[in-house]
């Protein structure tokens, strides 16, 4: 079994919560591995999903240098296992709330490379009509409530999405991604308390990449054991090896099963690392190069391919095919973004209010 370290499981000390009432459907969560999908195939899918994010973002770097993409761009490279592993256990009816470091979440959720790339180009065909850019990807049809660039700003929103689902008798889960830095904001703590108090179907997916911009975890948190602190709100909380897609998937599955069974919010501390700077503007002077290299040695993509190889899966052919598909997909996305129209300035005031044009 590959769950590197299920780490500590600290259950809440609070009184057990009553099981959720009035859930109309209680869809059985997928088994491990997903029923009907052989383990080998499943791993190849995880691999492809991670590689799609990696290659997409590598292309973004080139396009940023070529000034095709502007604004703030925050790369997810190194953290792919988190988005991909968590997404595996979510259904299309579940809701996702993300951050400004969100290309991975968006692509894993199934928003096409074409729609994301067009958004980065600021084109009308982008998933936010060109108005959001890299930090504000949205897709209502996929219940992807997008990129918030105010750190921790998505958390209260996620609590509300979860609350609505429960009030409407749906057995949906809301998953909110946020960082270790966000964990220091009041909005995290207020939301954690609210969610636990109201027993909300909320998955708090904390991407602990050890830095909030230039500030290392130990210099932003007096107690850096985030899972333990989350548990103090009265919710199950685990730390997970976030460099291992299968470990993430397994932990997320367990959490989501608990949430669907009505046991309220769960917290996952996904221990990961960003291989690149905080954003394109960041000279990255605050990290030891050796530290970065150590983490690169745990690259989630290599980790999975190594494991596949060890298990005798023909990974090299698989990789070749995956790479070919992804290259085509991204080439096509770039081509389409290049050709796509820009929103004319006359349309500036669209979408300010729903009923009227502008004001």
């Amino acid at each position, binding site marked *: 079994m590959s769950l590197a370290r299920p780490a500590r499981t600290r259950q809440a000390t609070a009184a057990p919560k009553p099981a959720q009432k009035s859930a109309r459907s209680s869809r059985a969560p997928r088994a491990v591995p997903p029923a009907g999908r052989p383990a080998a195939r499943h791993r190849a899918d995880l691999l492809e999903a991670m590689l799609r994010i990696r290659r997409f973002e590598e292309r973004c770097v080139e396009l940023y240098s070529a000034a095709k993409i502007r604004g703030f761009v925050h790369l997810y490279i190194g953290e792919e296992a988190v988005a991909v592993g968590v997404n595996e256990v979510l259904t299309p009816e579940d809701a996702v709330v993300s951050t400004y470091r969100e290309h991975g979440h968006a692509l894993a959720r199934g928003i096409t490379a074409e729609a994301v790339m067009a958004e980065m180009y*600021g084109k009308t065909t982008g998933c936010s009509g*060109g*108005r959001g850019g890299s930090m504000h990807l949205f897709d209502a049809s996929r219940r992807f409530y997008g990129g918030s660039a105010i750190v921790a700003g998505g958390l209260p929103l996620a609590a509300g999405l979860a609350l609505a689902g429960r009030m409407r008798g749906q057995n949906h889960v809301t998953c909110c991604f946020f960082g270790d830095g966000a964990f220091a904001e009041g909005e995290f703590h207020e939301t954690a308390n609210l969610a636990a108090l109201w027993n909300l179907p909320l998955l708090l997916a904390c991407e602990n990449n050890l830095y909030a*911009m230039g500030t290392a975890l130990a210099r*932003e948190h007096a107690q850096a054991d985030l899972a333990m602190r989350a548990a103090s709100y009265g919710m199950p909380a685990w730390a997970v090896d976030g460099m291992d897609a299968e470990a993430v998937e397994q932990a997320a599955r367990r959490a989501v099963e608990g949430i669907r069974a009505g046991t309220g919010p769960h917290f996952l501390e996904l221990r990961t690392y960003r291989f690149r700077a905080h954003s394109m503007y960041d000279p990255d002077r*605050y990290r030891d190069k050796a530290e970065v290299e150590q983490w690169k040695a745990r690259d989630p993509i290599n980790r999975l391919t190594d494991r596949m190889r060890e298990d005798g899966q023909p990974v090299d052919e698989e990789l070749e095919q995956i790479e070919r598909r992804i290259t085509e997909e991204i080439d096509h996305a770039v081509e389409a973004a290049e050709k796509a129209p820009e929103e004319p300035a006359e349309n500036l005031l669209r979408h300010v209010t729903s009923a009227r044009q502008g004001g």
Partner: protein
Amino acid sequence: MGASGTAEPKTTYREAMREAIREALRSDDRVFLMGEDVGRYGGCFGVSFGLLEEFGPERVRDTPLSESAFVGAGIGAALAGMRPIVEIMTVNFSLLALDQILNNAATLLHMSGGQLPVPIVIRMTTGAGRQLAAQHSHSLEGWYAHIPGIRVLAPATIEDARHMLAPALADPDPVLIFEHGSLYGLAGELRPPTRPVDLDHAAIRRPGTDISLITYGGSLPKALAAADELAAEGVDAEVIDLRTLRPLDDAAVAASVARTHRAVLVDEAWRTGSLAAEVSARIAERSFYELDAPVERVCSAEVPIPYARRLEEAALPQSADIVAAAHRAVD
């Protein structure tokens, strides 16, 4: 600004601000700087680069992401005799600390019957122009200028970046300093001030006789560019830099309008309820009979600032918009 082609050492707005902070830290041991990434990282816009090494982590203090807590802590420290300079990365994030700024910093003196002055300085970046989209681009200094009890500054030149901080720290009340993100790279020769820099007066950045272009902060370079363009067309524009957004220098505005009889207000904030609206109302109150044309306003479009370059440009005041507004007033 600053002659080109000569060997004069150039200073950037960013460096000028850093020098001002350095001077404050050197000259008063009650002063300390705190905020997200001000120390190790050197400030998200590089303003405080090198200060941690010079003054140490007690006085150049990195904070966790917790705007409400560290701004509130700054207010508390000010109450207890310190002179904190609190940096908030951008005005957009200051909304998490708005409660502390409004309900504590701005009101404690009055609510306590005059017992508790709050000598804090809070600096933050404001404004758009770098395709950072709606959560990183807004100009909310006008909201802060709405609040009695605080002083609001908008240094728009290298000189003001260098010299407004000391009097701000000397002010017994809270002072907010708004630094437009597009100004940090502004470079020129930093001349010693000819007279002490005060926080009460607007400045005439370019004298003129035909029309007053009244602005502040990141819009000043645009207004100056517009004035150049107007000059080429035979319109002699005066450019007024408000510098202090609260309290407003009504006399300077009235004097300029008395000279030119026409006014264009340029403000990167949204038009509705803006500082431009306030100044316009004051002109109507004080200078109504001086006016030869309706007051014109050039503000941001009433839309969350969009990412796409063309849309962002269309949303923001541009020199061409200022020139067009001036023509409407003059022609």
